[in-house]
């Protein structure tokens, strides 16, 4: 057996769990591959995801393993293939679709908000709608205003959807697997700037479940910082800086935007008495507004300062590099905000 063959043989035993240091991109591919092996009713559709492995290589190798009928290149027709996912789901399949840039969710908004999100409800619960919509969003790559949004705010207010936001390879892997097994539509917002970041993930783990709320990534007793997607890394970096000055910040990854469970965040604030949220979205109508509102309702007496929301400015994302960088919340800004509240 050559080394390659040995690797291939090992890969075919999905239940053998091993903690591996992998990239966010590899975590996505691994989750897709394992779930597609596990359930022959799964298939994935998207633009250029077949032989070419996807514009962001998030489907690398799937076409070779599962073939053209389960790894389907689609026309440039987001309404068409996202709508088709509903037809597949209603008739016994578990479709996954890739939206090349989250910005393009706008093109199929009706299918998601009016058809996919409501069909199970309108049928009185008599149909299942196991659909995963993966959308790659996020700023920092100089892609300009139409290719840089995370699109977190867009579908936040739509009952009937679950929305998850993986911020590291482990979550990208575990949450995507759980999403594929879910009988409800799940929107997975992935971040382009995270694709090459590395981390440990329990590859091969079969016992996965959809998280029911946010996750504490770093404990601390002086302030609570809540962030999503690429902002989680910025918040962790801010906590590192603050630690040098003896300030222990607790960093919470919101990870599930819908249904949003704020109680664990309120619990944290009851201990730290300070709340800062960091969101890569314009300020109006974002998840952090809900987090702040709920924390104020649930833990008002425990707050030592007004909660602070760090967001993008209320504009589309600019192209010019230093302007784009100035839009994106930095660890320095997060740390300074925390200190200003202490």
């Amino acid at each position, binding site marked *: 057996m050559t080394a390659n063959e040995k690797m291939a043989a090992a890969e075919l035993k999905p239940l053998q769990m091993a903690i591996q240091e992998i990239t966010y991109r590899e975590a996505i591919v691994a989750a897709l591959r394992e779930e597609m092996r596990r359930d022959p009713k799964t*298939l994935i559709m998207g633009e250029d995801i077949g032989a070419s492995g996807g514009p962001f290589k998030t489907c690398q190798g799937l076409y070779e393993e599962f073939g053209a*009928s389960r790894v389907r290149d*689609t*026309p440039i*027709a987001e*309404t*068409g*293939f*996202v*709508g*088709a*996912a*509903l*037809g*597949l*789901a*209603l*008739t*016994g*399949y578990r*479709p996954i679709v890739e939206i090349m840039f989250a910005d393009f969710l706008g093109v199929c908004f*009706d*299918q998601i908000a*009016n*058809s996919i999100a409501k*069909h*199970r*409800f*309108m*049928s*009185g*619960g*008599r*149909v299942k709608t196991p659909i995963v919509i993966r959308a790659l969003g996020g700023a920092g790559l100089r892609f300009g205003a139409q290719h840089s949004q995370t699109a977190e705010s867009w579908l936040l207010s739509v*009952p009937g959807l*679950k929305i998850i936001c993986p911020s590291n390879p482990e979550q990208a892997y575990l949450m995507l697997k759980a999403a594929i097994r879910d009988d*409800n539509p799940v929107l997975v917002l992935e971040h382009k700037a995270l694709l090459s970041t590395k981390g440990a993930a329990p590859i091969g783990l079969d016992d996965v479940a959809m998280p029911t709320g946010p996750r504490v990534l770093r404990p601390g007793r002086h302030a609570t910082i809540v962030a999503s997607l690429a902002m989680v890394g910025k918040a962790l970096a801010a906590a590192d800086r603050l630690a040098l000055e003896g300030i222990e910040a607790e960093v919470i990854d919101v990870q599930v935007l819908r*249904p949003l469970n704020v109680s664990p965040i309120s619990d944290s604030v009851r201990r730290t008495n300070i709340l800062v949220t960091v969101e890569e979205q314009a300020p109006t109508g974002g998840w952090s507004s809900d987090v702040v509102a709920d924390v104020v309702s649930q833990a008002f007496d425990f707050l030592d300062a007004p909660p602070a929301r760090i967001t993008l400015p209320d504009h589309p994302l600019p192209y010019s590099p230093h302007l784009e960088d100035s839009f994106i919340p930095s660890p320095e800004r997060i740390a300074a905000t925390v200190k200003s509240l202490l």
Partner: protein
Amino acid sequence: MNERAAGNARASDGAAAALTDEDRIDLLRTMIMIREFEEQVQRSYLEGLVHGTTHLCNGQEAVCAGVAKALRDDDYVSYTYRGHGQCLARGMDLEAAFAELFGRATGACGGLGGSMHLTDIDHGLIGAFGIVGAGLPVAVGAGLSAQLAGRKQVSVCFFGDGAVNIGAFHEALNIAQVWRLPVIFVCENNLYGEFSHILHTTPYEDLVIRAASYAMRTELVDGNDVLAVYAAAAGAVARARDNGGPAFLECKTYRHRGHSRTDPAKYRAPAEVEAWLKRDPLSLYRAELCAAGLISESDADRFTIEARSAVKAAADRAAAAPWPSLKQDFMAKTFV
């Protein structure tokens, strides 16, 4: 008014010739049942049992009845807010249909869907779409499902003439054609989208022109001739089952009533309405079966009376059903 459609499918396709006498009578009874159902919906509305709005299909019964006759139980059907006829033609339980329109717990969707969203997966009724054109991509997905499953099922998608101007229509036809999916697109061209005549919104009246630009097989059908509809559908379905790809059937028809409950349809010329009423699909077909000696006038009257009392009894039972409770009936089944 139907010169271009008249005789088209019937002459070109022998499919209707294969129907037994029983099948032919059954088609009439389906159309009568749909007509009587819609009339009862109107009465029940006046009694305060039906809420909101409804979009009745009186005058268009031949399309849903004719197409349904060409289908197997395991085929998939999607339709619009004007979808009572499709549901009944596929065998939806009358009481479940009324209970849904009445918003009761025993409704086809537990009272959560209503007139515009009748769904019944057990009869392959995958959904009614209230957003114009939205059902077409979903039907394409059901067609892909059928192709992958390899059991020679087809997916049939009903929509109106207004839907051909929305993007979803184009995306769906294109995907169905490039993937050669077993999808039958059935356009019920009733000449109006809400209150607008088709030529006010679309540059031509024959919508097969549009489908042909996707290199799709098309057929112009007299939608008020149930046997012509059946023949066209049977042909398209047989081809699709045989991996022959999708088809587009344009059924020329006319709604007898307004667009929805509140529409008196004053925008239609009386002469036009009168001409179409003379071509009422139900009267035409009833006369045809009587002339052929398959049934007598009194048989036909009996069918109508039986249908009327069946819908009345179903509506009465539905009206006695309990209201749904979100907690018990629903939350247990779906997530929040």
